[in-house]
């Protein structure tokens, strides 16, 4: 880890209301970092999607289980890690929302959006359990 990085760690209980807390924190970080409006929007959405998954699919809305979100603020990028206390899942087994059989399904697009909008996205099942989603977005050089 960079010695002069700023870090923000948030620990929330698994209630959907707390999505707003994560959203405002993410928005204030991308604003502080002067991300362009579009990038800031997609970062906010990607974090929201992964925290929604952590609360719903991971911790199954159990308010006694925590979701930990860690932001690392670097001069040229932001990286975000979202951890839950669920059973974990294998991302390579998730069906593609682009398959014609899935096109009209009402769900299953979150991870696809995260992968599209972030520069890096990894979905890990650490040995201590749960799911850990790592995402990274670089600042574009425009207007810098």
């Amino acid at each position: 880890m960079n010695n002069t990085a700023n870090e923000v760690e948030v620990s929330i209980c698994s209630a959907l209301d707390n999505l707003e807390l994560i959203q405002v924190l993410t928005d204030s970080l991308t604003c502080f970092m002067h991300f362009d409006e579009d990038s800031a929007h997609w970062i906010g959405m990607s974090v929201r999607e992964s925290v929604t998954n952590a609360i719903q699919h991971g911790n199954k809305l159990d308010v006694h289980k925590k979701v930990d979100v860690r932001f690392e603020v670097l001069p040229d990028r932001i990286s975000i890690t979202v951890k839950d206390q669920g059973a974990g899942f294998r991302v390579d087994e998730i069906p593609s929302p682009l398959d014609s059989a899935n096109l009209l399904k009402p769900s299953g697009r979150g991870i696809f959006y995260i992968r599209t909008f972030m520069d890096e996205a990894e979905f890990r099942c650490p040995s201590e359990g749960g799911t850990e989603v790592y995402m990274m977005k670089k600042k574009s050089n425009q207007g810098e």
Partner: protein
Amino acid sequence: MKIETRTVGDVKILDCSGRITLGEGTMVVRNTVRELVNADNKKIILNLAEVNYIDSSGIGELVSTYTTVTNNGGQLKLLGLTRKIQELLAITKLLTVFQTYEEERKALESF
């Protein structure tokens, strides 16, 4: 999230504004459309011009709405997609599913 429903002839136009995200937002869309379909409305336009935020659940809700209306023998049209909604639909190949319009007049004429 707020929806105001207008009637133009036999068409219902739903002016949506705010956020369509998991929970409250998606529920408002679902309930409003369900009511209209139950009252046997066949021609529905979702005006999304004032929707400033949508997540994957919101996109999913648009798909569900499409299915609900179509299964009832009706037609659903999307009006006034913001640049962001357009992008979300495009990358998940949904622009080919929905009929989308920029002008209300054109959407009305399309039924």
